[in-house]
């Protein structure tokens, strides 16, 4: 079956003269990747599942004792963990909503014949290509209350972005929006330019106003691809670590992955943190699944 779709090796090629067959070349390329995947992804995943049922601590030599579901029970009953989840949820909603609004808005602006469109699009994509750590460090400087550029430009005086516990999470979300709106923009732009022009002409003939056209034609037709952008961004925002870790150390910005990091590598509760990691994984899968269900519904139309 698999061989039927594979192109066959040219018998006169150099590879063939060295005694390589189609199958051996395929294996040569695929096996290293699979080995890598198993060693660094699948194995830790399964191994940590095992640890999540024990009281193992990586910092001691004490043997791991099987404790059953005790870790899960403790975590799900811990109000601090739930507050971490609440912070994460707030962050995901603000950040993803902001990215969709900004990204889609910019895509709408770009989806027309303007001079230097390609150049503008490329420049707008730059934030997305920077490293998370670099972005975090830069924005920390930008947010600086006494000499940061943001306060200077907005004329906010000594407004504290990151040391104000109520503002810090939003400040991180704003940074994330700045960095990842281009991603939503790029996908939206692809979706928008795929809407046939003649549908807009038909709508104009049918006397639809700009808002009616947007909500009844543009948005439903871009929805599937926009949904994919939202799925990606939600998953990423849920797992956010770097930006939050670099920008702020407020308790109000302790998103779930920071809690996880502290639990695993500062408190060395290895078994407990494995359990938390699994809870997070299941939550991300569940949320993604809701989106995918909705995406399929949208696609059916």
């Amino acid at each position, binding site marked *: 079956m698999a061989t039927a779709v594979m192109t066959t090796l040219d018998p006169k090629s150099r590879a063939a003269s060295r005694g390589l067959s189609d199958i051996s070349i395929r294996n040569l390329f695929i096996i290293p990747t699979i080995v890598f995947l198993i060693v660094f992804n699948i194995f830790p995943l399964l191994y940590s599942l095992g640890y999540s049922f024990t009281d193992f601590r990586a910092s001691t030599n004490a043997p791991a004792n099987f404790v059953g579901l005790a870790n899960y029970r403790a975590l799900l009953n811990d109000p601090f963990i739930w507050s971490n989840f609440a912070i994460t949820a707030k962050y995901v909603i603000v950040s993803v909503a902001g990215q969709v609004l900004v990204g889609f808005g910019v895509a709408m602006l770009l989806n027309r014949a303007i001079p230097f469109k390609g150049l503008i699009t490329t420049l707008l994509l730059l934030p997305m290509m920077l490293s998370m750590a670099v972005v975090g460090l830069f924005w920390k400087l930008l947010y600086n209350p006494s000499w940061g550029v943001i306060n200077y430009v907005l004329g906010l005086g000594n407004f504290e972005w990151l040391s104000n516990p109520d503002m810090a999470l939003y400040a991180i979300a704003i940074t994330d929006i700045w960095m990842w709106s281009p991603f939503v923009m790029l996908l939206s732009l692809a979706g928008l330019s795929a809407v046939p022009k003649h*549908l807009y002409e*038909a709508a104009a003939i049918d*006397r639809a106003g700009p808002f009616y056209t947007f909500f009844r*034609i543009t948005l439903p037709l871009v929805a599937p691809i926009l949904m994919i952008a939202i799925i990606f961004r939600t998953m990423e925002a849920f797992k956010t670590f770097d930006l939050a870790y670099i920008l702020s150390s407020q308790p109000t910005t302790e998103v779930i992955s920071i809690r996880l990091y502290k639990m695993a590598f500062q408190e060395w509760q290895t078994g407990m943190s494995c359990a938390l990691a699994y809870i997070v994984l299941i939550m991300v899968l569940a949320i993604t699944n809701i989106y995918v269900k909705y995406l399929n519904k949208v696609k059916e139309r």
Partner: protein
Amino acid sequence: MTQIELRGVQKYFGAVQVIKNLNLKIEDNEFIVLLGQSGCGKTTTLRAIAGLETIDDGDILIDGAPVQHLKCSDRDIAMVFQSFSLYPHMTVYENIAFPLRATRISRGEVDKEVREIAKVLRITDLLGRKPSALSGGDMQRVAIGRALVRRPKAMLMDEPIGALDAKLREEMRAEIKRLHLKQGSTTIYVTHDQIEAMSLADRIVIMHEGILQQVGTPSEVYAHPANLFVAQFVGSPVMNVAPATVSESAGAAQVTVEGAGQGFAFPRELLSRLNGKASAGGLSLGIRPEGVIVAHQAGDGFLPVEAHIIEPLGSYDIVDLKVGSQMLRARTRSGYVANAGDRVYAKLDPAQAHFFDTESGNSLGVRL
């Protein structure tokens, strides 16, 4: 009551002028067909009337009021596109309801109108489907329904059945005609298919390279083409056109096709009608295949010719006859000329002959 008038309309795409000084008056309830080859400016003209295209000069008037500066939504004109342009994410019902909902008409009203138009178009059972589940003909019915549902001042159709297969095209042609007779609205229809134009139009407007060539009823355009372009564009099989000379002999006019030894006999009055142009040369004879009469026996006025190619078309045959250096196509009863290469006799029906100035292509307006 909708009249549409174009006055001196000019349109450029960059340096290319696609509509050249177009003047046209369309009466209320008229079915006008814009006919021409692709790229002749007919679709641009239609889109300009709809408001999807701006014009560079001239006026477009609807009911006497200039509309060239209005957006299409303010012109109250409906349009059916060649690509149907149905909204793919909406059901047939929602598609037809779209123009009504867009202008905030009450829900009950919308439902009533949609069901009524669906009944007229016989698509009531399709209302719940998505466009992707429809056949080409049904898609076009929906597109027409969407255009008709709001009772527009005028209907514009841009090759609405060009994307359908031959059989469906014929069906939809009859349906469009039926609808027009029933609903009655000023309609402008664009096509490159002269049969469609002949069968649907009250008047045909023939365009070529952005210039209006002739406006007239189908029979006028067929029987009195204004120039060589119209003569050869309208009618199938195509009209024979051959360079010819007209001379006088034995008290009658002789029309000699280029390269032929003998001429066809024409009434003497042809000479006076041509008004001296006969001797000047540069004449083209045009005659439709049904104007070439073929006989097995020599008779008065018949010339011996050789049959070259025979195209049996079922109800009749088209026979290519070699006359001089030219080929004249004749329409005969099917099987009348048995074999290619047969010697037959031909004569021209003077009443169906047209004379054109070869250089300008214009008809000399000679009718016998």
